[in-house]
């Protein structure tokens, strides 16, 4: 029954169902398809997915509970001044929704996620739990060596969990798979930046989120399918302002908020949603020592984010400026989760740089379960209008 016209709708409704399924049915289905399959959860921002994949396991992105999860037990662990994602994640865990995961990886995103790693060790004693440190020193011989040790540890742990060691060959194969995935995501972002009316961010976002629960090979195909399907139909182009949304690299805004930004007259042409998939910015070396290759990609070719140290003062804001310039954006929307230390401490520095480059910006905070959209629509709408006036002048 699939006609070309409704292929987009079809893909997006599948993604939407995956996104809304807080029971992680897709993960359960994947595991059930072959005996002994294991799934490993990871939190934002970045973990080396390749190692999980090479161990024959499914990496599962746990990006909070969204705005449909009622958080009761999770709230019991957090004060009101802590962001939302750890509470909904704890809620998911304590209500058994993450039972399908055989382990969890907690990257060094901030102190809250860091501490959650230890809490998880206590609350889920029979699961594999690991804090994933990444170097804040970018020399191969210093930070690189440490990072390789860190990854090696995960590799050995997962090998044990899988019952067979993770070979270099498997790792190289996984790098190839993820290179293809990264390429697909890059294409998706390039396409959206070129024709944002053809690939609205609300759709792109759902498509990305599907990558949290699908194997990378399948997700790559899905992205290709979506891009192909997008080209088969023409959607109306609006006179919207082109903006980069920065800040939502960890706790995700509700889908309604993304829609609100678009509805208010903005085309999102770059963003930090699901930065995990774009953390390594280009292809990872597919031959040679795979651990070296992953390390080098991290040290020298990874995205900037506020969870990561900028070794030199002049590096600050480069990634954001590049996003703005390369995508032809006219302004920046700072959307930070409430109580998010990385995003909120980074914000004044980035704002200063934008001001220096005369790039307009606006800023607001959200939580993954933010309920009121009207103020955001209003603010983003005013921003879009002011950009148009500004560029007309």
């Amino acid at each position, binding site marked *: 029954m699939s006609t070309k016209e409704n292929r987009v709708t079809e893909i997006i409704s599948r993604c939407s169902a995956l996104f809304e399924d807080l029971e992680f049915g897709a993960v359960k289905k994947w595991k059930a398809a072959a005996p002994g399959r294991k799934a490993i959860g990871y939190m934002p921002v970045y973990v080396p997915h390749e190692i999980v994949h090479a161990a024959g396991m499914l990496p599962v992105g746990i990006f909070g509970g969204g705005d449909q999860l009622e958080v009761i037990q999770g709230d*019991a*662990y*957090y*004060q009101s*001044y*802590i962001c939302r994602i*750890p509470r909904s994640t704890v809620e998911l865990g304590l209500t058994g929704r993450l039972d399908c995961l055989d382990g969890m990886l*907690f990257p*060094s995103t*901030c*102190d*809250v996620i*860091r*501490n*959650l*790693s*230890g*809490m998880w*060790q*206590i*609350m889920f004693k029979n699961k594999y739990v*690991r*804090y*994933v*440190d990444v*170097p*804040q*020193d970018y*020399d191969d*011989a*210093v*930070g690189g*060596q*440490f990072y390789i*040790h*860190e990854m090696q*540890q995960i590799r050995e742990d997962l090998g044990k969990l899988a019952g067979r060691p993770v070979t270099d060959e498997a790792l190289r194969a996984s790098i190839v798979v993820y290179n293809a995935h990264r390429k697909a995501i890059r294409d998706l972002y390039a396409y959206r930046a070129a024709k944002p009316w053809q690939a609205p961010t609300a759709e792109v976002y759902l498509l990305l989120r599907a990558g949290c629960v699908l194997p990378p090979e399948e997700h790559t195909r899905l992205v290709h399918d979506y891009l192909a399907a997008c080209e088969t139909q023409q959607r109306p182009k609006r006179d919207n302002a082109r903006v980069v949304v920065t800040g939502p690299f960890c706790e995700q805004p509700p889908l309604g908020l993304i829609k609100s930004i678009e509805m208010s007259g903005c085309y999102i042409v770059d963003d930090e949603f699901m930065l995990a998939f774009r953390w390594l910015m280009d292809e990872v070396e597919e031959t040679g020592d795979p651990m070296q290759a992953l390390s080098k990609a991290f040290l020298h070719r990874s995205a900037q984010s*506020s*969870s990561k*140290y*900028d*070794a030199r*003062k002049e590096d*600050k804001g480069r990634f954001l400026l590049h996003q703005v310039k390369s995508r032809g954006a006219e302004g920046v929307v700072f959307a*930070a989760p*409430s*109580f*998010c*230390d*990385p995003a*909120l*401490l*980074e*914000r*004044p*520095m980035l*704002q*200063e740089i934008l001001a220096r480059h005369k790039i307009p910006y606006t800023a607001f*905070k959200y939580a993954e379960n933010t309920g009121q959209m009207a103020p955001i629509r209003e603010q983003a709408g005013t921003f879009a209008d002011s950009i148009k006036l500004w560029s007309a002048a």
Partner: protein
Amino acid sequence: MNTAVKKQVQKEDAMWLQKELINRNYHELATAREHNRKVSATFVPGNLNELLMCFDFARSLPETNALQNGMRKKSGKMIMDAERDGHSEDVCTYVKADLGMMLQGQVGPTGDPLPHPDILLLSYTGCFTFMKWFELVRQKYNCETVMLHVPYQGDGKVSPAMRDYVVKQLKEKVIPSLEKVSGVKFDIDRLRQYMRESVKAEENLVRVLQSAKQRPSPIDGYFGAVYYIGPMFTAFRGMPEATRYYDTLWAEVEQRMREKKGPVTPEGEIAEEKYRLVVEGPPNWTSFRDFWKMFADEGAVVVASTYAKVGGVYDFGFRHDPERPLESLAEYCLGCYTNLNFPQRIDMICRYMDEYQADGLLINSIKSCNSFSAGQLLILREVEKRTGKPAAFIETDLVDPRYFSAANVKNRLESYFQMIKQKRTAGAH
């Protein structure tokens, strides 16, 4: 770390010594430029004082500046200035107090001017905010910055790879940067000498903190300990003056132990020790004395606290080791309290509950500090479960006066003390 001097405030000799040290340090900072000295800034947890001393830096600690400003009731305005300058109300108030102080013209807590640092030693240890803090200062004041990334003890131990990583950074990044900025060549024997001095002071600090195992405890292991850890965790460890301070302090405490005396508070001595508590979390600085008084008035003595280990954990055996200077600096950084994972933190608190015969655990949850605070409610639950002792939870902030509600805190503390008392009475039936 002294409160404003008032005639009626009781102070011991050690207190005066400390005050002298602190004032002298602020004076050194104020006059660094005229004496051609370079100025360093770094953080308290796992701080590398001995190393900085090797390069003749005048040493500033932004956290201490912020808390001193908090105690002197100056931080509120600074925080608001920083917020007006674009900082979120959600983030750490140490950072905002520091940036606010700079905005106000960089006059330090004692009224002496504080020069902008020549180097920011970003020892990224146990606190994410440190990284952003110095990035912010760097961006605004263009200071040379050197990162020392100290990995977190995610699985509860220090692996050789972690230590090697820190040592390598010290050798290849930190020391060369310090040499370059200071113009002083690194001399490892000088470092060893300072470390020998450190060990003497460390021995005495541990004795002092562990004196609280006695009943009654001669010290308060939280409010009092804040003073005792001052020289150790700031700009003085490794100096003979610090060693002398700890000699004097230990002599005083030993005397109190012999005389079976309780802790001295600014309001006087605690006559009767009614409750023995372990406290987790940093104190509030803006109402420090009022806060302490709420405990002292009820006869509540803190016998051990995790905050007294915020710079480094000495009581399980760590000492700086002049034989392995860089390795031991690395271990010091890796072992500070906020770099421990949750199971380690809980074990440590349970151990304190037992070894110090505490009646309960009190958590002072600090809005600013996610490193301490995120997950403390699990600590509370686990410690209650494991020790069977009651735990309580209050919320304040480091230096944001808007976040200290005296009535609220007092109400909860009183309820908690009475609950302990009632349980004890019921238990005696």
